[in-house]
Protein backbone atom coordinates (compact mmCIF):
# COMPACT_ATOMS: atom_id res chain seq x y z
CA UNK A 1 0.00 0.00 0.00
CA UNK A 2 1.28 3.35 -0.88
CA UNK A 3 1.64 6.17 1.51
CA UNK A 4 1.85 9.54 0.05
CA UNK A 5 0.09 12.12 1.75
CA UNK A 6 -2.50 13.48 0.87
CA UNK A 7 -2.29 10.25 -0.18
CA UNK A 8 -5.46 9.66 1.54
CA UNK A 9 -7.40 9.37 -1.67
CA UNK A 10 -5.39 7.10 -3.85
CA UNK A 11 -4.01 5.32 -0.90
CA UNK A 12 -7.46 4.47 0.20
CA UNK A 13 -8.42 3.48 -3.28
CA UNK A 14 -5.41 1.25 -3.26
CA UNK A 15 -6.41 -0.04 0.11
CA UNK A 16 -9.96 -0.76 -0.84
CA UNK A 17 -9.15 -2.26 -4.18
CA UNK A 18 -6.17 -4.27 -3.16
CA UNK A 19 -7.88 -5.73 -0.19
CA UNK A 20 -11.19 -6.44 -1.78
CA UNK A 21 -10.61 -7.25 -5.35
CA UNK A 22 -6.99 -7.80 -6.23
CA UNK A 23 -6.39 -11.06 -4.51
CA UNK A 24 -7.58 -13.27 -7.33
CA UNK A 25 -7.06 -11.75 -10.73
CA UNK A 26 -9.47 -13.18 -13.20
CA UNK A 27 -7.12 -13.17 -16.15
CA UNK A 28 -9.63 -11.55 -18.45
CA UNK A 29 -8.03 -11.14 -21.87
CA UNK A 30 -6.89 -7.67 -22.77
CA UNK A 31 -8.97 -6.03 -25.41
CA UNK A 32 -7.64 -2.52 -25.28
CA UNK A 33 -4.75 -1.18 -27.21
CA UNK A 34 -3.87 2.46 -27.53
CA UNK A 35 -2.11 3.62 -30.65
CA UNK A 36 0.14 6.59 -30.19
CA UNK A 37 -2.20 9.57 -30.00
CA UNK A 38 -1.79 12.55 -32.24
CA UNK A 39 0.29 15.35 -30.85
CA UNK A 40 -1.50 18.35 -29.47
CA UNK A 41 -0.34 21.88 -29.91
CA UNK A 42 0.55 22.23 -26.25
CA UNK A 43 1.93 18.90 -25.08
CA UNK A 44 4.52 16.51 -26.46
CA UNK A 45 3.45 13.15 -27.81
CA UNK A 46 3.60 10.28 -25.34
CA UNK A 47 6.38 8.62 -27.27
CA UNK A 48 8.52 11.75 -27.01
CA UNK A 49 7.58 12.10 -23.38
CA UNK A 50 8.53 8.51 -22.63
CA UNK A 51 11.85 8.69 -24.46
CA UNK A 52 12.71 11.94 -22.70
CA UNK A 53 11.78 10.46 -19.34
CA UNK A 54 14.04 7.43 -19.89
CA UNK A 55 16.91 9.62 -20.97
CA UNK A 56 16.57 12.22 -18.22
CA UNK A 57 16.02 9.77 -15.39
CA UNK A 58 18.15 6.78 -16.32
CA UNK A 59 20.36 8.07 -19.17
CA UNK A 60 18.72 5.28 -21.09
CA UNK A 61 18.17 5.41 -24.83
CA UNK A 62 15.58 3.27 -26.57
CA UNK A 63 17.46 0.76 -28.79
CA UNK A 64 17.76 2.27 -32.25
CA UNK A 65 17.19 -0.98 -34.08
CA UNK A 66 14.67 -3.74 -33.66
CA UNK A 67 11.78 -4.10 -31.27
CA UNK A 68 11.90 -3.50 -27.54
CA UNK A 69 9.29 -3.68 -24.79
CA UNK A 70 8.99 -1.55 -21.70
CA UNK A 71 6.70 -2.59 -18.86
CA UNK A 72 5.64 0.56 -16.98
CA UNK A 73 4.56 0.14 -13.36
CA UNK A 74 4.49 3.39 -11.33
CA UNK A 75 3.83 3.69 -7.62
CA UNK A 76 0.38 5.25 -7.89
CA UNK A 77 -2.99 3.73 -8.63
CA UNK A 78 -3.87 0.24 -7.52
CA UNK A 79 -0.79 -0.64 -5.57
CA UNK A 80 -1.91 -4.11 -4.58
CA UNK A 81 -2.26 -4.79 -8.31
CA UNK A 82 1.18 -3.35 -9.04
CA UNK A 83 2.76 -5.55 -6.37
CA UNK A 84 1.14 -8.57 -8.00
CA UNK A 85 2.36 -7.50 -11.42
CA UNK A 86 5.95 -7.10 -10.24
CA UNK A 87 5.82 -10.48 -8.53
CA UNK A 88 4.48 -12.02 -11.73
CA UNK A 89 7.37 -10.52 -13.69
CA UNK A 90 9.85 -11.83 -11.11
CA UNK A 91 8.70 -15.37 -11.77
CA UNK A 92 9.77 -15.68 -15.41
CA UNK A 93 13.03 -15.14 -17.28
CA UNK A 94 12.26 -12.54 -19.92
CA UNK A 95 14.14 -11.83 -23.13
CA UNK A 96 16.75 -9.02 -23.12
CA UNK A 97 14.32 -7.01 -25.24
CA UNK A 98 12.07 -6.56 -22.20
CA UNK A 99 12.71 -3.81 -19.64
CA UNK A 100 10.65 -3.09 -16.55
CA UNK A 101 10.37 0.59 -15.63
CA UNK A 102 9.18 1.10 -12.10
CA UNK A 103 9.65 3.31 -9.08
CA UNK A 104 9.66 3.16 -5.31
CA UNK A 105 7.12 0.37 -5.32
CA UNK A 106 10.01 -2.01 -5.83
CA UNK A 107 11.02 -1.50 -2.25
CA UNK A 108 7.78 -3.07 -1.06
CA UNK A 109 8.89 -6.44 -2.43
CA UNK A 110 10.96 -8.78 -0.31
CA UNK A 111 14.69 -8.93 -0.88
CA UNK A 112 14.25 -12.34 -2.53
CA UNK A 113 11.60 -10.97 -4.87
CA UNK A 114 13.72 -7.95 -5.74
CA UNK A 115 16.68 -10.21 -6.48
CA UNK A 116 14.58 -12.52 -8.59
CA UNK A 117 13.14 -9.62 -10.56
CA UNK A 118 16.59 -8.16 -11.22
CA UNK A 119 17.81 -11.58 -12.35
CA UNK A 120 14.91 -12.21 -14.69
CA UNK A 121 14.48 -8.91 -16.45
CA UNK A 122 16.24 -5.66 -17.19
CA UNK A 123 15.20 -3.17 -14.58
CA UNK A 124 15.04 0.61 -14.56
CA UNK A 125 13.86 1.59 -11.11
CA UNK A 126 13.63 5.09 -9.72
CA UNK A 127 13.29 4.21 -6.07
CA UNK A 128 13.45 7.74 -4.73
CA UNK A 129 10.29 7.61 -2.74
CA UNK A 130 10.00 10.56 -0.47
CA UNK A 131 7.88 12.29 -3.10
CA UNK A 132 6.02 11.43 -6.27
CA UNK A 133 8.66 10.97 -8.92
CA UNK A 134 8.28 11.66 -12.60
CA UNK A 135 7.12 8.15 -13.48
CA UNK A 136 4.25 8.60 -11.06
CA UNK A 137 3.20 11.85 -12.72
CA UNK A 138 3.94 11.35 -16.38
CA UNK A 139 0.86 11.32 -18.63
CA UNK A 140 1.02 8.13 -20.62
CA UNK A 141 -2.17 6.75 -22.21
CA UNK A 142 -2.73 4.05 -19.59
CA UNK A 143 -6.09 4.20 -17.83
CA UNK A 144 -4.74 2.24 -14.86
CA UNK A 145 -1.37 3.96 -15.14
CA UNK A 146 0.25 0.61 -15.94
CA UNK A 147 1.01 -0.68 -19.41
CA UNK A 148 3.42 -1.81 -22.08
CA UNK A 149 5.29 0.47 -24.44
CA UNK A 150 6.36 -1.25 -27.64
CA UNK A 151 9.21 0.46 -29.44
CA UNK A 152 10.63 -0.15 -32.86
CA UNK A 153 13.85 1.35 -34.19
CA UNK A 154 14.14 3.80 -31.32
CA UNK A 155 10.52 5.00 -31.41
CA UNK A 156 7.53 4.11 -29.25
CA UNK A 157 4.97 2.72 -31.64
CA UNK A 158 2.28 1.32 -29.37
CA UNK A 159 0.94 1.78 -25.86
CA UNK A 160 -0.86 -1.25 -24.40
CA UNK A 161 -2.54 -0.60 -21.07
CA UNK A 162 -3.12 -3.39 -18.62
CA UNK A 163 -4.73 -3.58 -15.20
CA UNK A 164 -5.31 -6.09 -12.46
CA UNK A 165 -7.69 -8.08 -14.63
CA UNK A 166 -5.57 -8.14 -17.76
CA UNK A 167 -1.92 -8.04 -16.77
CA UNK A 168 -1.31 -11.78 -16.91
CA UNK A 169 -2.70 -12.01 -20.41
CA UNK A 170 -0.84 -8.94 -21.67
CA UNK A 171 2.49 -9.76 -20.05
CA UNK A 172 2.34 -13.35 -21.28
CA UNK A 173 2.77 -12.03 -24.80
CA UNK A 174 6.23 -10.66 -24.02
CA UNK A 175 9.20 -12.57 -25.41
CA UNK A 176 10.88 -14.93 -22.96
CA UNK A 177 14.52 -15.74 -22.57
CA UNK A 178 15.64 -18.77 -24.47
CA UNK A 179 16.84 -21.61 -22.28
Amino acid at each position, binding site marked *: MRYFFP*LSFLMCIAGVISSSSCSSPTGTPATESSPVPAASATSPMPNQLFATYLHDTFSHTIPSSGEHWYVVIPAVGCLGCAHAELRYLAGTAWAPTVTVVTSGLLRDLSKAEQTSLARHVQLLADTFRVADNTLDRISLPFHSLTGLVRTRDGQAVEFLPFDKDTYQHVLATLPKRRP
Partner: protein
Amino acid sequence: MLLLQPAGWLVLAGILLSACNRTPERIGLTATTEIRFRKPASYYPQARCILAYYDDSLRGQEYFYFLDRASNTLLHTRLAAAPPADSVFALQRTSLAHLFHHTPYPLEAMGVFAPDSLVFVDGGVHSICLTNAQGQVRQQWQPRAPIYGRTPYFITTGFQPVYTKGSRLYLHAGPDDVGNITADTMAFHRLLTYKTGLVLDVRDTLFANNFTGEFPGFLSAKNNFNIVAPQSCVTPEGDYLFTYGSFSQIYRYALSGHKQVTDAPSRYHRPARGLPFSSLKNHQDLIGYKLTEPEYGPLLSDPYRRRYLRVYRHGLPAALNQPVRPSYADIPWSLLILDAGLNVVGEVPFAPTYDPDLILVTRRGVLIGNHRPEHAGYNPQQLSFLLFTYQPLQAPSS
Protein backbone atom coordinates in the same frame (compact mmCIF):
# COMPACT_ATOMS: atom_id res chain seq x y z
CA MET B 1 -32.10 38.81 46.93
CA LEU B 2 -31.36 40.47 43.64
CA LEU B 3 -33.53 38.00 41.77
CA LEU B 4 -36.48 38.96 43.88
CA GLN B 5 -36.38 42.43 42.31
CA PRO B 6 -37.61 43.12 38.72
CA ALA B 7 -34.33 44.88 38.04
CA GLY B 8 -32.50 41.71 39.04
CA TRP B 9 -34.40 39.70 36.43
CA LEU B 10 -33.56 42.31 33.85
CA VAL B 11 -29.86 42.07 34.70
CA LEU B 12 -29.98 38.27 34.47
CA ALA B 13 -31.86 38.41 31.16
CA GLY B 14 -29.29 40.86 29.83
CA ILE B 15 -26.44 38.56 30.80
CA LEU B 16 -28.12 35.56 29.16
CA LEU B 17 -28.96 37.55 26.05
CA SER B 18 -25.45 38.82 25.65
CA ALA B 19 -24.10 35.31 26.15
CA CYS B 20 -26.42 34.00 23.44
CA ASN B 21 -25.56 36.78 21.01
CA ARG B 22 -21.84 36.69 21.61
CA THR B 23 -19.91 36.14 18.42
CA PRO B 24 -17.41 33.34 18.86
CA GLU B 25 -13.93 34.61 19.38
CA ARG B 26 -11.95 34.59 16.14
CA ILE B 27 -8.73 32.65 16.38
CA GLY B 28 -5.65 32.68 14.18
CA LEU B 29 -2.25 31.04 14.33
CA THR B 30 1.12 32.55 15.00
CA ALA B 31 4.35 30.89 13.92
CA THR B 32 6.89 30.67 16.68
CA THR B 33 9.89 28.34 16.51
CA GLU B 34 11.09 25.62 14.18
CA ILE B 35 11.63 22.10 15.48
CA ARG B 36 13.82 19.84 13.39
CA PHE B 37 14.65 16.15 13.56
CA ARG B 38 17.58 14.42 11.90
CA LYS B 39 16.30 11.67 9.59
CA PRO B 40 17.45 9.26 6.88
CA ALA B 41 17.50 10.94 3.47
CA SER B 42 15.21 8.32 1.98
CA TYR B 43 12.47 8.88 4.55
CA TYR B 44 9.62 11.32 4.56
CA PRO B 45 6.40 10.61 6.48
CA GLN B 46 3.70 10.89 3.85
CA ALA B 47 0.70 9.96 5.94
CA ARG B 48 -0.75 10.78 9.30
CA CYS B 49 -1.04 7.14 10.22
CA ILE B 50 2.71 6.88 10.70
CA LEU B 51 3.11 9.86 13.01
CA ALA B 52 2.54 9.77 16.73
CA TYR B 53 3.05 12.06 19.68
CA TYR B 54 2.82 11.11 23.32
CA ASP B 55 2.81 13.57 26.18
CA ASP B 56 3.95 12.12 29.49
CA SER B 57 2.56 14.94 31.54
CA LEU B 58 3.54 13.31 34.85
CA ARG B 59 7.21 13.34 33.94
CA GLY B 60 6.99 16.39 31.72
CA GLN B 61 8.37 14.53 28.73
CA GLU B 62 7.28 14.48 25.11
CA TYR B 63 7.79 11.59 22.70
CA PHE B 64 7.72 11.73 18.91
CA TYR B 65 7.38 8.67 16.69
CA PHE B 66 7.80 8.32 12.93
CA LEU B 67 7.25 4.98 11.24
CA ASP B 68 9.46 4.17 8.26
CA ARG B 69 7.49 1.49 6.50
CA ALA B 70 10.00 0.98 3.73
CA SER B 71 12.60 -0.24 6.21
CA ASN B 72 10.23 -1.43 8.96
CA THR B 73 11.91 0.91 11.38
CA LEU B 74 10.54 3.13 14.09
CA LEU B 75 12.27 6.49 14.38
CA HIS B 76 11.64 8.09 17.72
CA THR B 77 12.89 10.55 20.26
CA ARG B 78 12.10 11.99 23.62
CA LEU B 79 12.11 15.71 23.23
CA ALA B 80 14.31 17.54 25.66
CA ALA B 81 13.17 20.83 27.05
CA ALA B 82 16.04 22.61 25.37
CA PRO B 83 17.11 21.82 21.80
CA PRO B 84 20.61 20.48 21.14
CA ALA B 85 23.40 22.80 20.12
CA ASP B 86 22.71 22.48 16.41
CA SER B 87 18.94 22.74 17.00
CA VAL B 88 18.33 19.37 15.35
CA PHE B 89 16.96 16.52 17.45
CA ALA B 90 18.43 13.09 16.77
CA LEU B 91 16.05 10.18 16.18
CA GLN B 92 16.67 6.73 17.57
CA ARG B 93 16.00 3.68 15.42
CA THR B 94 14.14 0.56 16.49
CA SER B 95 13.76 -2.28 14.03
CA LEU B 96 10.27 -3.67 13.61
CA ALA B 97 11.15 -6.17 10.91
CA HIS B 98 10.16 -9.04 13.17
CA LEU B 99 6.62 -7.84 13.79
CA PHE B 100 4.72 -8.97 10.72
CA HIS B 101 7.22 -11.25 9.03
CA HIS B 102 4.49 -13.83 8.52
CA THR B 103 2.42 -11.53 6.32
CA PRO B 104 3.31 -10.08 2.91
CA TYR B 105 2.05 -6.69 3.99
CA PRO B 106 4.11 -3.78 5.24
CA LEU B 107 3.35 -1.94 8.43
CA GLU B 108 0.44 0.40 7.96
CA ALA B 109 -0.03 2.48 11.07
CA MET B 110 0.85 2.95 14.68
CA GLY B 111 -0.55 4.23 17.94
CA VAL B 112 0.78 4.90 21.42
CA PHE B 113 -0.81 3.89 24.70
CA ALA B 114 2.36 4.82 26.54
CA PRO B 115 6.07 4.85 25.69
CA ASP B 116 6.30 1.19 26.72
CA SER B 117 3.05 0.19 24.98
CA LEU B 118 3.14 0.86 21.26
CA VAL B 119 0.53 -0.47 18.83
CA PHE B 120 1.23 -1.44 15.23
CA VAL B 121 -1.21 -2.55 12.56
CA ASP B 122 -0.15 -4.40 9.44
CA GLY B 123 -1.08 -3.39 5.93
CA GLY B 124 -2.96 -6.62 5.48
CA VAL B 125 -5.23 -5.34 8.21
CA HIS B 126 -5.34 -8.70 9.90
CA SER B 127 -2.87 -8.28 12.73
CA ILE B 128 -2.32 -5.91 15.60
CA CYS B 129 0.86 -5.94 17.69
CA LEU B 130 1.42 -4.42 21.09
CA THR B 131 5.12 -3.92 21.80
CA ASN B 132 7.33 -2.34 24.41
CA ALA B 133 9.63 0.58 23.69
CA GLN B 134 12.26 -1.77 22.27
CA GLY B 135 9.82 -3.23 19.75
CA GLN B 136 9.53 -6.55 21.58
CA VAL B 137 6.10 -8.08 21.14
CA ARG B 138 4.03 -8.11 24.29
CA GLN B 139 0.83 -9.24 22.67
CA GLN B 140 -0.38 -9.95 19.18
CA TRP B 141 -3.91 -10.36 17.91
CA GLN B 142 -5.30 -11.58 14.66
CA PRO B 143 -8.95 -10.73 15.10
CA ARG B 144 -10.85 -12.61 12.47
CA ALA B 145 -14.18 -12.93 14.13
CA PRO B 146 -17.19 -11.51 12.33
CA ILE B 147 -18.29 -8.19 13.69
CA TYR B 148 -21.37 -6.12 13.03
CA GLY B 149 -23.53 -9.19 12.92
CA ARG B 150 -22.71 -11.90 10.43
CA THR B 151 -20.77 -9.89 7.88
CA PRO B 152 -17.10 -10.84 7.76
CA TYR B 153 -15.05 -7.71 8.29
CA PHE B 154 -11.42 -6.99 8.45
CA ILE B 155 -9.90 -4.33 10.64
CA THR B 156 -8.08 -1.40 9.16
CA THR B 157 -6.89 2.00 10.17
CA GLY B 158 -8.33 3.66 7.08
CA PHE B 159 -4.89 5.27 6.92
CA GLN B 160 -5.80 7.26 9.99
CA PRO B 161 -3.64 7.26 13.09
CA VAL B 162 -4.42 4.47 15.52
CA TYR B 163 -6.05 6.47 18.26
CA THR B 164 -5.78 5.21 21.81
CA LYS B 165 -7.72 6.26 24.83
CA GLY B 166 -7.68 4.36 28.09
CA SER B 167 -7.62 0.75 26.98
CA ARG B 168 -9.50 1.50 23.77
CA LEU B 169 -8.26 1.43 20.20
CA TYR B 170 -10.11 3.48 17.60
CA LEU B 171 -9.97 1.85 14.19
CA HIS B 172 -12.08 1.21 11.13
CA ALA B 173 -13.65 -1.89 9.74
CA GLY B 174 -13.88 -2.97 6.14
CA PRO B 175 -16.06 -5.66 4.63
CA ASP B 176 -14.28 -8.79 3.49
CA ASP B 177 -16.90 -9.97 1.07
CA VAL B 178 -17.65 -6.89 -0.97
CA GLY B 179 -16.24 -8.22 -4.23
CA ASN B 180 -14.75 -6.29 -7.10
CA ILE B 181 -15.90 -2.71 -6.60
CA THR B 182 -14.47 -1.39 -9.84
CA ALA B 183 -16.24 -3.91 -12.03
CA ASP B 184 -19.50 -4.29 -10.20
CA THR B 185 -21.67 -1.27 -9.43
CA MET B 186 -23.71 -3.34 -6.98
CA ALA B 187 -20.57 -4.23 -5.08
CA PHE B 188 -19.48 -0.63 -5.05
CA HIS B 189 -22.77 0.66 -3.69
CA ARG B 190 -22.82 -2.18 -1.17
CA LEU B 191 -19.44 -0.99 0.01
CA LEU B 192 -20.84 2.49 0.54
CA THR B 193 -23.47 1.18 2.92
CA TYR B 194 -21.11 -0.62 5.26
CA LYS B 195 -20.38 0.64 8.72
CA THR B 196 -16.78 1.62 9.10
CA GLY B 197 -16.16 2.75 12.65
CA LEU B 198 -14.76 0.38 15.21
CA VAL B 199 -13.74 0.80 18.81
CA LEU B 200 -11.93 -2.08 20.45
CA ASP B 201 -10.91 -2.72 24.01
CA VAL B 202 -7.52 -4.31 24.41
CA ARG B 203 -8.31 -5.65 27.85
CA ASP B 204 -10.11 -8.51 26.14
CA THR B 205 -7.96 -10.97 24.27
CA LEU B 206 -10.60 -11.58 21.62
CA PHE B 207 -11.54 -7.98 21.39
CA ALA B 208 -12.87 -8.12 17.87
CA ASN B 209 -16.28 -8.88 19.28
CA ASN B 210 -16.08 -6.11 21.77
CA PHE B 211 -16.82 -3.20 19.52
CA THR B 212 -18.93 -0.36 20.73
CA GLY B 213 -21.10 1.77 18.54
CA GLU B 214 -21.83 1.74 14.85
CA PHE B 215 -20.62 4.43 12.55
CA PRO B 216 -21.66 5.53 9.10
CA GLY B 217 -20.40 4.00 5.93
CA PHE B 218 -18.90 5.95 3.09
CA LEU B 219 -21.05 8.81 1.94
CA SER B 220 -21.99 8.88 -1.68
CA ALA B 221 -24.68 11.50 -2.09
CA LYS B 222 -24.75 12.51 -5.73
CA ASN B 223 -21.49 10.68 -6.17
CA ASN B 224 -19.58 13.46 -4.47
CA PHE B 225 -18.06 10.79 -2.39
CA ASN B 226 -14.33 10.99 -2.84
CA ILE B 227 -14.10 7.31 -2.20
CA VAL B 228 -11.88 7.90 0.70
CA ALA B 229 -12.18 6.37 4.10
CA PRO B 230 -13.43 8.88 6.62
CA GLN B 231 -11.02 11.19 8.32
CA SER B 232 -11.35 10.84 12.05
CA CYS B 233 -10.18 11.91 15.46
CA VAL B 234 -11.16 11.27 19.05
CA THR B 235 -12.45 13.87 21.49
CA PRO B 236 -11.11 14.21 25.04
CA GLU B 237 -14.34 12.48 26.16
CA GLY B 238 -13.66 9.51 23.91
CA ASP B 239 -16.24 10.34 21.24
CA TYR B 240 -15.34 9.40 17.69
CA LEU B 241 -15.46 12.21 15.09
CA PHE B 242 -15.71 11.52 11.36
CA THR B 243 -15.58 13.68 8.27
CA TYR B 244 -15.79 12.77 4.60
CA GLY B 245 -13.85 14.30 1.75
CA SER B 246 -16.45 16.37 -0.07
CA PHE B 247 -18.70 17.20 2.83
CA SER B 248 -18.50 20.01 5.34
CA GLN B 249 -20.34 18.10 8.07
CA ILE B 250 -18.62 16.52 11.03
CA TYR B 251 -20.24 13.45 12.59
CA ARG B 252 -19.81 12.93 16.29
CA TYR B 253 -20.48 9.47 17.70
CA ALA B 254 -20.44 8.96 21.43
CA LEU B 255 -19.79 5.46 22.69
CA SER B 256 -23.14 5.73 24.41
CA GLY B 257 -24.71 5.69 20.95
CA HIS B 258 -25.58 9.38 20.85
CA LYS B 259 -24.99 10.90 17.42
CA GLN B 260 -24.64 14.50 16.38
CA VAL B 261 -23.97 16.23 13.07
CA THR B 262 -22.39 19.68 12.91
CA ASP B 263 -21.79 21.70 9.78
CA ALA B 264 -18.31 23.20 9.82
CA PRO B 265 -17.62 24.52 6.33
CA SER B 266 -14.50 26.23 5.09
CA ARG B 267 -15.00 29.78 3.95
CA TYR B 268 -13.53 28.56 0.66
CA HIS B 269 -16.02 25.72 0.46
CA ARG B 270 -17.33 24.77 -2.96
CA PRO B 271 -19.19 21.61 -3.76
CA ALA B 272 -17.18 18.90 -5.45
CA ARG B 273 -18.40 17.70 -8.82
CA GLY B 274 -19.72 14.20 -9.18
CA LEU B 275 -17.48 11.36 -10.16
CA PRO B 276 -19.05 8.88 -12.56
CA PHE B 277 -18.76 5.23 -11.68
CA SER B 278 -16.83 4.57 -14.86
CA SER B 279 -14.04 6.77 -13.54
CA LEU B 280 -13.48 4.41 -10.66
CA LYS B 281 -11.51 2.15 -12.92
CA ASN B 282 -9.65 4.93 -14.62
CA HIS B 283 -6.82 6.04 -12.42
CA GLN B 284 -6.00 8.93 -14.71
CA ASP B 285 -9.49 10.28 -14.01
CA LEU B 286 -9.15 9.63 -10.30
CA ILE B 287 -5.87 11.48 -10.06
CA GLY B 288 -7.27 14.40 -12.02
CA TYR B 289 -10.30 14.46 -9.73
CA LYS B 290 -8.12 14.40 -6.67
CA LEU B 291 -5.93 17.21 -7.93
CA THR B 292 -8.69 19.57 -9.00
CA GLU B 293 -11.57 19.00 -6.59
CA PRO B 294 -11.71 20.53 -3.13
CA GLU B 295 -11.64 18.15 -0.23
CA TYR B 296 -11.78 18.14 3.52
CA GLY B 297 -8.69 16.44 4.86
CA PRO B 298 -7.27 15.48 8.22
CA LEU B 299 -9.27 16.18 11.35
CA LEU B 300 -7.32 16.61 14.57
CA SER B 301 -8.21 17.08 18.19
CA ASP B 302 -6.32 19.57 20.33
CA PRO B 303 -7.11 18.38 23.85
CA TYR B 304 -4.81 20.97 25.42
CA ARG B 305 -6.80 23.92 24.14
CA ARG B 306 -10.16 22.16 23.68
CA ARG B 307 -10.18 22.87 19.98
CA TYR B 308 -10.24 20.92 16.73
CA LEU B 309 -8.33 21.42 13.53
CA ARG B 310 -9.56 20.53 10.09
CA VAL B 311 -7.74 20.66 6.76
CA TYR B 312 -9.46 21.90 3.60
CA ARG B 313 -7.68 21.34 0.30
CA HIS B 314 -8.74 23.89 -2.26
CA GLY B 315 -7.91 21.93 -5.40
CA LEU B 316 -5.95 23.13 -8.41
CA PRO B 317 -7.69 25.08 -11.18
CA ALA B 318 -6.31 22.81 -13.89
CA ALA B 319 -4.31 19.69 -13.47
CA LEU B 320 -4.58 17.58 -16.56
CA ASN B 321 -3.49 18.00 -20.16
CA GLN B 322 0.04 18.53 -19.01
CA PRO B 323 2.88 16.17 -19.92
CA VAL B 324 3.79 15.79 -16.28
CA ARG B 325 0.93 16.19 -13.84
CA PRO B 326 1.19 18.60 -10.93
CA SER B 327 1.94 17.05 -7.60
CA TYR B 328 -0.49 16.76 -4.71
CA ALA B 329 2.06 18.88 -2.91
CA ASP B 330 1.08 21.79 -5.18
CA ILE B 331 -2.46 22.02 -3.81
CA PRO B 332 -3.10 25.05 -1.59
CA TRP B 333 -4.96 24.36 1.62
CA SER B 334 -6.26 26.00 4.73
CA LEU B 335 -6.58 24.97 8.34
CA LEU B 336 -9.92 25.48 10.06
CA ILE B 337 -9.90 26.05 13.79
CA LEU B 338 -13.00 24.76 15.58
CA ASP B 339 -14.06 25.29 19.16
CA ALA B 340 -15.20 22.55 21.52
CA GLY B 341 -18.69 22.68 19.99
CA LEU B 342 -17.22 22.22 16.48
CA ASN B 343 -18.01 25.80 15.49
CA VAL B 344 -15.53 27.31 13.08
CA VAL B 345 -13.69 30.09 14.91
CA GLY B 346 -10.90 30.66 12.42
CA GLU B 347 -9.36 29.55 9.17
CA VAL B 348 -5.75 30.06 8.17
CA PRO B 349 -4.66 29.60 4.55
CA PHE B 350 -1.34 27.85 3.99
CA ALA B 351 0.98 27.80 1.02
CA PRO B 352 1.48 24.34 -0.52
CA THR B 353 5.00 24.26 0.87
CA TYR B 354 3.39 23.39 4.21
CA ASP B 355 2.31 19.78 4.51
CA PRO B 356 -1.30 19.24 5.62
CA ASP B 357 -0.53 15.61 6.39
CA LEU B 358 2.31 16.48 8.69
CA ILE B 359 0.44 18.09 11.56
CA LEU B 360 0.94 17.12 15.17
CA VAL B 361 -0.91 18.65 18.10
CA THR B 362 1.44 18.94 21.05
CA ARG B 363 1.49 20.45 24.47
CA ARG B 364 3.51 23.36 23.07
CA GLY B 365 1.13 24.10 20.20
CA VAL B 366 0.48 22.84 16.69
CA LEU B 367 3.43 21.50 14.71
CA ILE B 368 3.09 21.72 10.93
CA GLY B 369 5.66 20.35 8.49
CA ASN B 370 7.08 23.34 6.67
CA HIS B 371 9.40 21.77 4.10
CA ARG B 372 8.19 19.16 1.63
CA PRO B 373 10.37 17.11 -0.71
CA GLU B 374 8.56 18.51 -3.73
CA HIS B 375 9.54 22.08 -2.97
CA ALA B 376 12.74 24.08 -2.85
CA GLY B 377 14.37 24.39 0.53
CA TYR B 378 13.78 20.79 1.53
CA ASN B 379 16.69 19.29 3.40
CA PRO B 380 16.68 15.48 2.90
CA GLN B 381 18.53 15.04 6.18
CA GLN B 382 15.93 16.82 8.27
CA LEU B 383 12.27 16.67 9.13
CA SER B 384 11.21 20.18 9.87
CA PHE B 385 8.16 21.54 11.67
CA LEU B 386 7.06 25.04 12.47
CA LEU B 387 5.39 25.47 15.84
CA PHE B 388 2.19 27.50 15.76
CA THR B 389 0.25 28.86 18.70
CA TYR B 390 -3.27 30.20 18.72
CA GLN B 391 -3.82 33.89 18.68
CA PRO B 392 -7.09 35.78 19.19
CA LEU B 393 -7.80 37.96 16.19
CA GLN B 394 -8.79 41.57 16.43
CA ALA B 395 -12.25 42.31 15.12
CA PRO B 396 -12.04 44.42 11.96
CA SER B 397 -12.67 48.05 12.71
CA SER B 398 -15.77 49.41 11.06
